[in-house]
């Protein structure tokens, strides 16, 4: 069952209406022409038959009248009414007589066809043939034909015959012909009407089926694509349309699907950028807060010790002045370190070194080498997987990442008697994950993300500015990868994992 709605239904209705209108006009025109032609043929046949019959039958009628006149002469002349009655009775057997009267020479009826001679003596009005013009007078009135004929022999006139026939015989034949042809025409008209009705119904059925098929092939895909576009517009970017349609419809479907895919991609990118922007805004807020807070702290220290140094100078306490100046210097160094880290952080993502092939095993060893003093001091053993792949990356930045992660691991060994750091690679579904794993104090799940915040320190006594992990994440993200922390909680160590685009 073809289901039509919306544009499909309208399209089908338009097509059906158009088809029906065309067929109806064609049928009406053909029917009118056929009917008119039939009427012309009928009229011609009627006329031809009438003319032929009229000629022949009038001759026959005149012959019959002549015969009757001969039969009637003697009895009329002899006033033999009995014999006239017999002749009239005989004539009724072979002529369609309505009335028959024999008129005497006094123009009064002598005998007629009624059993009681009811018209006897009636005067006959109107013209009657005479010896000078003896031809019968034939007058047709409606369906009846009156014939007045002279009954004479030579110059002797015995009277007249007045004969009324129910109709001229030829008219009867003609009427029969007309009735039969009329029935034929009527049957023909019924056939034409039936044929027209059948053609109409067939056309209607064909029109509906054709319209339905056309609707399926044209309008329905459009409707489907319209619905898909609406779905896409409402945000369902996974909506797709069937691209098997031929020609322009297929191209349109493909374009729609392509548009949906691009919109989805752009949407993803937009959402990602929006998340990134939100994260950066948060980071910036924290940065502003941290900067204002953490930079304020050394300044307060410097300001305080400067005031103390002023007092101590005034008091002449040279030893305390030295101590005050040392503290002022330390606070200034701290501020310098903070500002350096901030500067470095701001550079990440803006200053990009040309990418190069970087063997990660080698790079990890280089990082360990740079941190050797601290690692030895902490007694941390570092194990580097020997088969780490070569990746295409900014070598210096990636080295900073590994340094930060290994240093961070060495920093939080906790109570571990045998602190150990492992640099390796694992295969997750669809991606390769590099990790720097330690067996240190671990991180609670609720802090796994916080450690990447700028200046974030889970322990206030911890060394450093709290910028390292934030810096590492930004570098990894600048390489199209991700950096995150995994830990099963305190005492279970921590794994810092990252991916790299193309790795």
């Amino acid at each position: 069952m073809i289901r039509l709605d919306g544009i499909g239904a309208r399209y089908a209705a338009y097509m059906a209406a158009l088809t029906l209108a065309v067929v109806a006009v064609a049928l009406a025109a053909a029917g009118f022409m056929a009917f008119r032609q039939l009427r012309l043929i009928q009229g011609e046949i009627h006329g031809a038959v009438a003319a032929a019959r009229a000629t022949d039958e009038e001759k026959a009628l005149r012959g019959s009248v002549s015969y009757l006149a001969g039969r009637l002469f003697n009895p009329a002349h002899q006033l033999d009414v009995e014999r006239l009655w017999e002749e009239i009775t005989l004539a009724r057997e072979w002529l369609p007589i309505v009335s028959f009267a024999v008129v005497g020479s006094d123009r009064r009826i002598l005998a007629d066809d009624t059993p009681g001679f009811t018209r006897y003596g009636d005067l006959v009005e109107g013209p009657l043939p005479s010896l000078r013009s003896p031809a019968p007078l034939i007058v047709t009135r409606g369906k009846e034909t009156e014939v007045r004929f002279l009954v004479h022999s030579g110059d002797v006139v015995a009277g007249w015959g007045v004969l009324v026939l129910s109709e001229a015989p030829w008219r009867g034949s003609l009427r029969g012909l007309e009735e039969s042809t009329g029935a034929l025409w009527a049957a023909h008209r019924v056939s034409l009407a039936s044929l027209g009705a059948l053609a109409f119904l067939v056309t209607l059925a064909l029109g509906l089926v054709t319209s339905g098929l056309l609707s399926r092939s044209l309008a329905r895909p459009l409707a489907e694509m319209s619905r898909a576009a609406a779905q896409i517009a409402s945000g369902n970017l996974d909506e797709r349309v069937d691209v098997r349609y031929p020609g322009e419809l297929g191209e349109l479907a493909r374009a729609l699907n392509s548009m949906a895919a691009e919109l989805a991609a752009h949407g993803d990118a937009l959402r990602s950028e929006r998340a990134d922007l939100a994260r950066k805004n948060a980071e910036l807020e924290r940065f502003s807060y941290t900067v204002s807070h953490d930079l304020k702290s050394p300044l307060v220290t410097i300001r305080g010790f400067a005031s103390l140094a002023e007092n101590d100078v005034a008091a002449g306490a040279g030893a305390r002045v030295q101590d005050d100046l040392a503290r002022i210097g330390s606070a200034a160094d701290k501020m310098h370190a903070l500002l350096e880290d901030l500067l470095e952080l701001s550079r990440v993502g803006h200053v990009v070194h040309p990418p190069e092939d970087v063997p990660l095993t080698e790079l990890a060893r280089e990082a360990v080498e740079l941190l050797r003093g601290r690692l030895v001091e902490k007694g941390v053993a570092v194990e580097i997987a020997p088969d780490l792949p070569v990746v295409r990356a900014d070598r210096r930045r990636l080295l900073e990442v590994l340094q930060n992660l290994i240093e961070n691991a060495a920093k939080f060994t906790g109570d571990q008697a045998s602190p150990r750091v492992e640099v390796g690679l694992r295969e997750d579904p669809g991606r390769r994950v590099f990790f720097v794993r330690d067996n240190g104090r671990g991180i609670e799940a609720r802090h796994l993300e916080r450690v990447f915040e700028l200046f974030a320190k889970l322990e206030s006594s911890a060394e450093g500015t709290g910028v390292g992990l934030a810096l590492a994440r930004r570098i990894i993200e600048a390489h199209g990868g991700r950096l995150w922390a995994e830990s099963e909680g305190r005492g279970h160590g921590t794994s810092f994992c990252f991916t790299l685009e193309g790795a």
Partner: protein
Amino acid sequence: MVSCRSSGHALLCAALAVLAASTANTASAVPQPASLPRVLRFGVIAEEPNEPGKMLRVYGPLLARLREQLRPGGIELQPLVVTRDLDELAGCLTRGEVDFVIETVFPTLALHEHGAKLASDLVVLRGGKREYHSVFFTRLDAPIRTLADLRGRTLVLQALRSTSAFALPRAELARAGLAVVPADDALASKAAVRYLLAGSEVNQAVWVLHRRGDAGAFNERDWATLPEKMRAQLRLFHETRPIIRGLLSFRAALDPGVRARAREALLGLSADDAGRAALAAAAGISRFELLTAADRAEIGSWRAALRAVGAR
């Protein structure tokens, strides 16, 4: 049907009758053994020579019924003998080719005059009437009031053998002392009543109305059945005394046994519906009755009247 003619055709008629008889039984020229069935033949005069089958249609049912009645008595009713006129019928009777006839009084008397030996046994009742009479009529505007007014005028009659429309009026005129002669009789007295023969009752009326004659005469039943428009233009001015409606007469030489048996059968025809229907078909016969002495006396008087006018 066997038809006989008078004079020149008598021999042929006889031969045909003989042939017919021989076809039915054996040759009549040969004396019939007593064991052979006896025969009876009915003869009529054709009223309309142009329609020979009419008499067969009229008398066919009657003869069929009569044949059924006679056959158990060993009498075989022969086919109807149709003759052309009175002379021919008289000849057939004389030669024994017809055994009985049904006629009105005057034709019956005429048959006697023509030599046929007849014995009238039964009266024929038609329309339930035993007798009828003739009426004289003329135009409404005619000055004729009595039979005497017909003197020197023309009377339209039907046919020579008609009782009511010829013989009876003629006898009535004779009884009134008027001479009646054919219209074309150039030697007749101017005072005589001249007659024309119109051939039928309705023609008689028309001829009178068209002044071809001054008056006419036929029986009262003809007057009653005359077309209304004609009767309205005519008036009656005289009627005759009644006369027996008809007579059934046997050939005088017919075997008495056959005659008696036939008479008995004819009288019995009106006893049942089938017989009455057959009788009615025969020109409206109601039944037959035996001729009484009074009837015979009346017939005798009419015979005298007939002879008085010298009618044929």
